[in-house]
């Protein structure tokens, strides 16, 4: 028995067996999904692996506490700036009282008494970490005569009216803390690097660290729910005009993106179902096949997901969202098969024979259609991204299952008894068009060819340029509160742009110290040379155990009793009040202890209070594992071009220090060549595959040439439309070209394969062109509905695909068909149009 007859026999005579097989398949798939489903919510896994910058970003996201930061901004009217300044501390207190808030930074720590006290608590290890010459010079200040001289001088300056002695004596009565903090101070200028108030004073920024357990989407959503509740009540105590309370940060973005993704999936799925159902009903006036098609597609998704899970063990959430594409693609097969089946039924053929006819007539076309699409998506594996690999494999699997199920399972939903044929205006129109264009192809070609050629010229022309948007903004939801907050902060504080980060992992603290000393010196040279704007490193906090030990030994030469006595008497003789200098006596005791007591010094991390604002600085540099550290480079301009990125990649590394350069802007810029390669190379590979396949399939160079020209012009028309409509390409919607090539080629295959085998040209070709039009329209609607997605990348993908498919469909109908006709002799065309068997009017 031939395959098409066997399928027809099974789905009509052995329905129970087929249903049992489906039930078994469903049960197995559901079992796999329930027992093994693990969702990977890491958006970064969508970016290609093998890029240092991407891996760096993942490390930074995973290992550094800063990813738990939330930035709040209060924005008031210009008349209320004084009120805002008064309200700021109240707001900071409210933040501190929140159960989700671990720490708050509302001003430069050095300007608060707590900040100074906290700094004094870690002064000892910082002092012992000074380089030998600086350490010798600093501890020389502990000689009795130097102590007396210094206090006398400060007293004189105080008398002379200088503000400096008061500051100096408050922070550092002995004069040894300031030199110890000098290396640290160059990094401690949080206020300078990231100001906490705008110049016009209408905005104040508050940095917080949250205590969310993980940085996953669910925890981010939970946190942001609490934050929103806080935002709603945080105005209490404010008596000025309108006050905006804004919040941004990774958690805010992740919560928004994950929620908007859920919204997008629901909305676009409902939109797709509505539009696809509408087009199907308009085309065929039947509901049962529509329901059958939906359930069959659901089965495809279920089995593809289960198989994908068996292969990958976990699936990216975004990948599952993209499975909506599968529905758009699978619908084509259902419409084609049903169109052919219905045509046979309308011709009076019975249920089983009509199924056999549909499978026989379209089996090859659907097989090759599925093959081209599957290969197109499998090509995503070349992108090197875990997320894209999953997406490619899932859709390739899904489309293969769709090809199989639409030619088997789908028929189970079709009624054995066919309703009476009714007038099919669409088929009649298509048939008339086919007949006209086959008889007289020239008029249609004279319209379509110049139009497509003009669009091709526009596509190749440098003007207007195609917009390539690789900014981080291109990846945030259209209506994003976090994005608005960030934009407002950036607008009011233009100096705040994202730095490039250099991540260094070391084997031990000594190596960490040595590496950062080298890096800091090198980056300082770059800053002096004007190649970078500024930088900050953990050099001052990456302590050297070797140096600590050496300096402790040097401390033993100090006579602390004499120093203490000299300090005491200098205080008295200069008329200072003794209680002002209590911290100095504590420090003298600590230094004495460090000199005389055996064993290691306590870790400075344990000395710094957990609530201290200085942790904002420490957490910037140190991961949970203190041997994983990062430095920051603020570039002269935000990183946006390849030249900038190349310069940074060339200049920032230091010989002998393994460093990973990263940061969002840096990474996205780094990925631009990858994205271009995706666009050009892989799309070209795909085109070569398509061209080869078509050559094998048609074995007719004229048809081959026509379809290759169709594909080329359709893609060019898509590019031209995107240029003219100013639709930007981004890192994800470059996929659209592959999709359009994969699906667009199918339309031609369906039409030309039937063309080659047609017994009566207008009848047979119209029998496939109508479903192709319907399939094309459903795909355009399906992808077009992605345009309502909140996520611009998804919406961009939808628009680009809808445009590309529109041109593929239009080129197939208005160029491929008349061109195929024009390629044949007139006599052959006339002969092919003659009816061989009488057909009812509607078919």
């Amino acid at each position, binding site marked *: 028995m031939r395959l098409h007859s066997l399928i027809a026999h099974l789905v009509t005579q052995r329905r129970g067996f087929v249903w049992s097989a489906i039930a078994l398949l469903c049960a197995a798939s559901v079992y796999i999904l329930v027992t093994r489903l693990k969702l990977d919510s890491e958006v970064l896994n969508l970016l290609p692996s093998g890029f240092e910058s991407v891996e760096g970003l993942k490390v930074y996201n995973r290992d550094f506490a800063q990813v738990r930061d939330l930035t709040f901004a209060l924005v008031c009217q210009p008349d209320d700036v*004084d009120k805002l*300044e*008064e309200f*700021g501390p109240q707001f900071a207190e409210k933040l501190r009282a929140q159960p989700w808030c671990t720490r708050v930074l509302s001003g430069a720590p050095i*300007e608060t008494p707590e900040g100074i006290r906290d700094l004094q608590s870690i002064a000892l290890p910082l002092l012992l970490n000074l380089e030998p010459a600086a350490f010798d010079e600093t501890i020389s200040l502990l000689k009795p005569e130097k102590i007396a001289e210094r206090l006398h*001088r400060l*007293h*004189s*300056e*105080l*008398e*002379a*009216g*200088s*503000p*400096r002695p*008061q*500051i*100096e*004596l408050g922070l550092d009565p002995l004069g040894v803390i300031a030199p110890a903090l000098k290396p640290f101070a160059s990094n401690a200028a949080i206020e300078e690097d990231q100001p906490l*108030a705008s110049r016009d004073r209408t905005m104040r920024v508050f940095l917080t660290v949250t205590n969310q357990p993980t940085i996953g989407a669910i925890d981010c959503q939970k946190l942001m729910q609490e934050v929103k509740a806080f935002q709603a009540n945080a105005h209490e105590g404010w008596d000025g005009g309108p006050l905006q309370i804004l919040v941004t940060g990774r958690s805010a973005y992740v919560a928004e993106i994950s929620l908007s993704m859920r919204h997008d999936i629901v909305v676009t799925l409902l939109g797709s179902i509505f539009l696809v159902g509408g087009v199907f009903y308009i085309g065929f006036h039947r509901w049962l096949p529509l329901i059958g098609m939906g359930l069959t597609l659901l089965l495809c998704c279920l089995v593809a997901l289960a198989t994908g899970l068996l292969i990958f063990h976990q699936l990216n959430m975004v990948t599952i969202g993209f499975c909506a594409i599968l529905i758009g693609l699978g619908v084509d097969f259902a419409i084609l098969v049903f169109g052919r089946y219905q045509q046979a039924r309308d011709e009076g053929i019975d249920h089983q024979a009509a199924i056999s006819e549909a499978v026989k007539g379209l089996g090859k076309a659907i097989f090759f259609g599925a093959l081209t699409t599957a290969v197109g998506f499998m090509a995503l594996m070349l992108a090197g991204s875990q997320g894209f690999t999953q997406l490619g494999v899932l859709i390739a699997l899904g489309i293969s299952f769709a090809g199989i199920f639409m030619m088997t399972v789908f028929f189970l939903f079709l009624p054995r008894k066919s309703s009476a044929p009714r007038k099919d205006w669409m088929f009649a129109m298509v048939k008339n068009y086919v007949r006209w264009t086959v008889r007289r192809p020239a008029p249609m070609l004279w319209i379509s060819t110049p139009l497509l050629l003009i669009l091709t010229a526009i596509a190749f022309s440098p003007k207007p340029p195609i917009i390539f948007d690789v900014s981080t903004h291109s990846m945030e939801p259209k209506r994003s509160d976090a994005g608005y907050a960030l934009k407002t902060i950036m607008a009011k504080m233009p100096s705040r742009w994202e730095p490039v980060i250099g991540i260094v992992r070391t084997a031990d603290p000594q190596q960490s110290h040595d590496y950062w000393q080298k890096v800091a010196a090198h980056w300082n040279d770059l800053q002096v040379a004007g190649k970078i704007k500024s930088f900050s490193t953990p050099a001052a906090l990456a302590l050297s155990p070797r140096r600590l030990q050496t300096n402790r030994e040097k401390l033993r030469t100090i006579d602390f009793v004499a120093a203490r006595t000299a300090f005491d008497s200098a205080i008295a003789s200069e*008329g*200072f*009040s003794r209680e*002002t200098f209590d911290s100095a006596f504590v420090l003298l005791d600590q230094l004495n202890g460090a000199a005389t007591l055996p064993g290691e010094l306590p870790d400075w991390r344990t000395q710094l209070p957990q609530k201290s604002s200085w942790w904002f600085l420490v957490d910037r540099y140190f991961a949970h594992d203190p041997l994983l550290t990062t430095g920051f480079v603020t570039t002269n301009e935000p990183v946006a071009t390849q030249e900038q990125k190349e310069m940074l990649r060339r200049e920032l590394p230091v010989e002998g220090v393994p460093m990973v350069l990263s940061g969002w802007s840096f990474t996205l810029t780094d990925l631009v060549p990858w994205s271009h390669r995706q666009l050009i190379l892989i799309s070209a590979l795909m085109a070569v595959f398509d061209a080869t396949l078509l050559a094998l399939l048609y074995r007719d160079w004229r048809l081959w040439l026509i379809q290759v020209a169709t594909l080329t012009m359709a893609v060019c028309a898509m590019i031209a439309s995107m240029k003219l409509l100013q639709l930007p390409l981004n890192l994800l919607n470059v996929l659209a070209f592959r999709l359009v090539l994969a699906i667009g080629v199918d339309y031609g295959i369906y039409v030309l394969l039937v063309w080659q085998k047609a017994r009566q040209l207008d009848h047979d070709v119209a029998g496939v062109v109508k479903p192709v039009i319907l399939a094309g329209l459903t795909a355009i609607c399906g992808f077009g509905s992605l345009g309502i997605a909140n996520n611009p990348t998804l919406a961009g993908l939808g628009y680009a695909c809808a445009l590309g498919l529109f041109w593929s469909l239009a080129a197939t109908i208005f160029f491929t068909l008349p061109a195929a006709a024009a390629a044949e002799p007139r006599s052959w065309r006339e002969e092919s149009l003659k009816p061989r068997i009488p057909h009812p009017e509607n078919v």
Partner: protein
Amino acid sequence: MASLVFLAVPLVSAEPVSPADLKALLARIKEKRAAAPQVQADFQEEKTVHMLNKPIASSGKMWFQSPNKFRREAKGNSPSITVSDGQHLWIYYPKFKSAEHYSLGKRSPLDAGIAAITASLNLENVEGTYHIAGTKEADGYQLQLTPRNPSMKRLLQSFSIRLNNELQVVRTEMLQPNGDRIITTYSNESRTPIPASTFEFTPPAGTDVTNPLGK
């Protein structure tokens, strides 16, 4: 002596100035300052600092040019020269051959301090920066200024200015939140023109220059 002081109290009792009169008084001061935007005077200062057990006394001469240029030369055991052109502040210590340089207008706490000093000398637009209350006394006026701006409040708790009937500043008292207090009395006021070079400062050769708050 005690009874004389007791008897004198009713004679120096002060009357609060109504808001309208205060406004008129400030307008008069402004008018006078506009006519002669510069002033020079001798001063005597007593500074009570919480770090020191005894107050610091100093004296010298000051020059002021509206809106924000000033020069102050203190004599005595710890002489100093303080010069500001509105953008930079220099404090020079001849005894130590050292100088401190501060950049103004960078939102440092120093800006609020300088604003407080110039407010007493200038009294222009003080209503925008301070809540003002005034009293009329037999020999002039007493203005009580409290900062509106929180950054100023961190530096200055209250500021009182005593003016004579010619509206010349004769005494100021500055109280800081940490308890430090500076009382300055002025005499021999003159409003003759001051050469621009008075408000310029170049450290003498060999001076050790520091930037305590950075550049």
